[in-house]
C-alpha cells in the first residue's frame, strides 16, 4: 500500500533545473537510497516526496494516491501525507523534552480526530492521553531511550538525538519513512551500529524507507536498491551488487568504489564485446572488453521495475570515432611477472591493512591494481605484467 512512485518529476530553482524529468518506483517495504555527490538533486527529490517542495512538472503518488501533480494542481500538504522523516539536523524541538517530542505527532493526530466531535471526545481525551503515554514509552523503549524521557534534546549525545528523531518519525506508524543524511553527524563507529539497527527495525516494521546519502558505504550496507543521481537525473537504479559489477555508465562506474578509467580506441567488435587499443602512448597494448550492461548510456530515468528489462543490449558501446573508456576495478587487474600481459612499472606501493595496492605506470597512464596476497610483493621500480580480467567499455566524451 505504501509504494512511492515518481513519474516525470522536475523541479527548478530560479531557472536552474535541480531535478529533471525523474521517474522512480520504490516498492512497498523496500529500502532505497538516493546516492550522489552534493548538488545532484537527491535532497530536493526527498523534499518533493515529503511535500516541502512542489514539483514544477510530473506526478508523485504514495500508496497509489496522488500527492503532488503539476498537471492537475493537486497537492497534499506534508502534514496529510502520513510519512515520517528524520532530518539531517534531527530537528528536535529544543523547547520540548524527549517525551514531548515523540508525543507531539500523536497529540496532533488526537487533536485532529477530536475536532469533529468535541463533546464526545472530551471524555476520550483522558483515554487518548493514556494511550499516547503508552505508545511513547513503547517507542522510547524501542530506541533504547526509556530513561531519557524527561531530558531536553540539548542534554543528549548525537547518537541519542538521532534515535529520538527516529522514534518521533515512527510515532504515528507511518508506512513511509524518509531519511535525510541520517548518520552524517555521527562518528564512524556509531554510524555503523546505527545503520544495522535501523535496517533491523525496518525489516521488523515492514515500512518503506527512502534515504538520502552521499556515503556509498552507507548506501551499500543498508539498501535493497540504490538510485545513483547526478545532475538531477538518476544514472542507474539497481541493487548494490549490480551497481558495483555492472555500472550503467562512466559516472556510476567512477562514483561507486575504486575503478580505473582508461581511454582507448575500439578496434574490433563482436556482439557483446570487442578489443581496444589503450591510448597509453605506447600504441600496441590491446585489451578485450565487454559492453556495459545497458549497452549505452542508460535512458535517463525511465527505471520502472523489473529494473533491467529496458536495458537494450548489443547497442555499440562506442562514440562515432570509436573512442571508448575502459573501466576496470583494481581487483580485476592481475599483477605478476609472467610472460603474458601488458608491461608496466610499479610506481608506488600502498599498504591498506588487508591488502596491498600498486600504482603501475603503463606508458602515459597509471593503473591501480590490487596485489595477490599469495605472491611476494613488488618493490617500486620493478617491472611487472598486467592482465585485465573484467573490462567494461563506455563511449568516451560524456
Amino acid at each position: 500500500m505504501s509504494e512511492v512512485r515518481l513519474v516525470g518529476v522536475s523541479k527548478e530553482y530560479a531557472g536552474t533545473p535541480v531535478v529533471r524529468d525523474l521517474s522512480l518506483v520504490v516498492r512497498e517495504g523496500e529500502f532505497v537510497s538516493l546516492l550522489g555527490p552534493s548538488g545532484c538533486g537527491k535532497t530536493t527529490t526527498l523534499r518533493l516526496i515529503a511535500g516541502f517542495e512542489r514539483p514544477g512538472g510530473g506526478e508523485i503518488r504514495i500508496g497509489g494516491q496522488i500527492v503532488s501533480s503539476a498537471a492537475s494542481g493537486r497537492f497534499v500538504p506534508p502534514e496529510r501525507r502520513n510519512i515520517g522523516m528524520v532530518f539531517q539536523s534531527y530537528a528536535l524541538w529544543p523547547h520540548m523534552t524527549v517525551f514531548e517530542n515523540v508525543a507531539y505527532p500523536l497529540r496532533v493526530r488526537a487533536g485532529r480526530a477530536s475536532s469533529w466531535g468535541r463533546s464526545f471526545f472530551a471524555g476520550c481525551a483522558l483515554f487518548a492521553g493514556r494511550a499516547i503515554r503508552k505508545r511513547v514509552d513503547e517507542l522510547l523503549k524501542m530506541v533504547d531511550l526509556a530513561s531519557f524521557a524527561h531530558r531536553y534534546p540539548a542534554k543528549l549525545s548525537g547518537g541519542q538525538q538521532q534515535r529520538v528523531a527516529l522514534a518521533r518519525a515512527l510515532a504515528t506508524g507511518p508506512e513511509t519513512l524518509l531519511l535525510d543524511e541520517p548518520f552524517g553527524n555521527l562518528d564512524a563507529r556509531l554510524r555503523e551500529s546505527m545503520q544495522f539497527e535501523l535496517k533491523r527495525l525496518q525489516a521488523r516494521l515492514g515500512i518503506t524507507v527512502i534515504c538520502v546519502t552521499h556515503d556509498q558505504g552507507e548506501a551499500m550496507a543498508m539498501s535493497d536498491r540504490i538510485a545513483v543521481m547526478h545532475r538531477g537525473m538518476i544514472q542507474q537504479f539497481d541493487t548494490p551488487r549490480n551497481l558495483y559489477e555492472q555500472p550503467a555508465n562512466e559516472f556510476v562506474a567512477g562514483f561507486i568504489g575504486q575503478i580505473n578509467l582508461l581511454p582507448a580506441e575500439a578496434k574490433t567488435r563482436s556482439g557483446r564485446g570487442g578489443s581496444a587499443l589503450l591510448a597509453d602512448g605506447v600504441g600496441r597494448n590491446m585489451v578485450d572488453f565487454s559492453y556495459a550492461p545497458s549497452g549505452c548510456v542508460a535512458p535517463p530515468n525511465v527505471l520502472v521495475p523489473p529494473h533491467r528489462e529496458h536495458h537494450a543490449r548489443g547497442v555499440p558501446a562506442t562514440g562515432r570515432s570509436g573512442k571508448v573508456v575502459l573501466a576496470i576495478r583494481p581487483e580485476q587487474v592481475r599483477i605478476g611477472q609472467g610472460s603474458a600481459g601488458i608491461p608496466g612499472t610499479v610506481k608506488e606501493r600502498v599498504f591498506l591493512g588487508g591488502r596491498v595496492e600498486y600504482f603501475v605506470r603503463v606508458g602515459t597512464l597509471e593503473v591501480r591494481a590490487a596485489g595477490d596476497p599469495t605472491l611476494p610483493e613488488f618493490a617500486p621500480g620493478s617491472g611487472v605484467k598486467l592482465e585485465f580480467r573484467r573490462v567494461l567499455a563506455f563511449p568516451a566524451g560524456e
Partner: protein
Amino acid sequence: MPAVLKRREQAEKGLWSGGLLFFGLALFGSFPLLVVIWDSLQVEGAFSPRNYLAVYQRPANLIAVVNTLEMSALSMLIATTLAFLLAWLLERSDLPGRGFLRALFLLPYLAPPFVGAIAWTELLNPRVGYLNRLFMQIFGLLHAPLDIYSLGGLVWVMSIQEMPLALLAISTAMQRIDPAWEEAARLAGVGRLRMIRQITLPVVLPGVLAGAMLVFMSAASAFGVPAIIGMPARIYVVTTRIVSYVYTGTSQGMGEATALAVLLMAAGLLFPALANRWTAGRSNQLAAARASRPGRVELGRWRWPLFFLCLGFGMVAVAMPLVTVVGTSFLKATGLPLAVENLSLRHWAYVFTRFPFGLESFKTSLLAGVMAATLATAVGLMISYRRVKTHLPGRQAADLLVFIPFATPGVVLALALIVTWSGRFVLNLYGTFTLLVLAYAIKYLAHAARIVAVSLEQIHPSLEEAGQGAGAGKMRVFRDITLPLAKSGLIAAWFGVFILSFYELTMSVLLNGPYTRAIGVTIYELQTYDDPQSASVLASVVIFLVLAASRLLFRNRAVIP
C-alpha cells in the same frame, strides 16, 4: 507554467492580510511624511517656495542649522573616538573587569537622554552645580569654572549619551575579527602595529563608520538634550526650532516648521542609505561572531592603570549623573550638599499627591508604553514572519515602510502625524491618546521587527518542517513550535519598545494634549519651569523602572539591539 500559477495562488492568500498591513503602515508611517513635503511647498493653497525662502533667510534658522551640524559633528568625533578606544580595550585586550565595564558604559543607552541632561545641569550649573562648587572650594575660585549652558556643555552631554550607540556598533565589528586573520598576518612576518593598520583597522572600519553615522544622525535629531541644555543658553538647533515654531501655533509657523522638517527628514533618510551603499560590499566579509575569544592582546603593566582609568571615566560620565538625579530628588532644596540632615521626601510627596500632572502622566506613559509595545511587537511579528519564513511578495516594500518612520527624526514624524491626522483626512486624532500610541508604535516598529526577525531566523526551517511531518498544519506549527521558540525575542522586542515609549520625549512634546501628557513632557516642563527637584523625582522613577525592565530583559537572555 503551472508552478508559477501555484505560487500566484498561494501569494493571493497572503496578499490580503499583507495588503491590509501595508496600508496601515503606510497610512501612519510614510503617508504623513509626504503630506509634510507637500505642505512645505504650499503657501495659502498654492505652490510656492516661500516657506523655504522665509525659513532659510532667517538668520536664527541658519544659526540653528550651523549649530546642529557643529553639535552633531563634534559629538560624533568625541563619542566615536571614545567608543573605539573602549571597544578595543573591551573586545581585543585582556583588561580586567570587562563584563562590568561593558555594562557600565552601555547604561546611558537604557536611560533617557534628558535624564542625563538634567543631571549635568545639576552638576555644572554655573550658580549651584555640585561640581562647580567643589572646584570653587578646592581651588579657591570666585566664579564657577564650568558652565553647562554652552555649546561645549551640549556637546559633552550629547557625546556621553550617544557613546553607547557607537560602542555597540564598533564592538560588534571587533567581535567579528577572526583572530586567525591577525595570526596569519603575524606569521607572514608583519609586526604588531602594521598588523593593526593593515588587517584590524580595515576590517572594523565599516563598523566604526556605521557607529559614527548613527551618532551623527541621533545627535542631529535629538530634542531632549538641546532643549534642556541649549535653550536656556539661547543655543537653538533644528529640532528645537521646529518645536518652537509649532508652539507658536500660527499657519505661517507651521509652514516654516514643515520646511525645516523636510531638511531634517532628508538628512535622516539619505544619510543611512548612502552609508549602507558604502559599507554594503564590505561588511559581509566578516566572520561570524565567535563565543570564545582567543588571542587577546596582553596589556602587561598597563592592565590595571587602564582599568582604573576606564572605571573612573565610567563613574564620572555614567554613574555620577544618575546618582545625582536620584540624590537631588531627596534633597530639601537644590544646591544643598548631600548630607543626612538635608534629606527629605517632601518633593516625592508633592509630585505624587498635590502636583496635578505627576501621577497622571506616569499612568499615561505606562499605559501608552504597554499598548505601543504590544502593537509594535504584534505587527513586527507579522512583518518578520512574512519576511523570514515565507516567499510572499512585497517583503522589500514592507522593510521600506518600517524603515522610513524609524529613520525619520521624531520631531518630524510627530509634526507629520499632527499635520495629517488633525481632521484633514476624515480622522481627527490630534491630542488623543490613540495618536500617541500610534506614534510610539510606528517609530519603534523597526526595533521590534528586527529583534523578532533575528529570533525567527534562528529557528531552523527543519524544526517547522518536522512539525508538518508530524501532521500539524501551518497554524498549529506556528503556535506549538515557532511561537515558543521565538518567545525570548518577542519579550525582548516588547520590553525594548516599552522602555523607549515610556520615556519618549521628542514626539510627546508635540503630541501633547490635555489628557495625553507623557511623563517625559512633565519632567521636561518641570525642569524648564525651574523646579529641578520635582523633575528629579520623576526622572528617578524613570531610572528605576528602566533598570528593573532591563534586568528582566537580561534575565531572559534576550537580544540587546
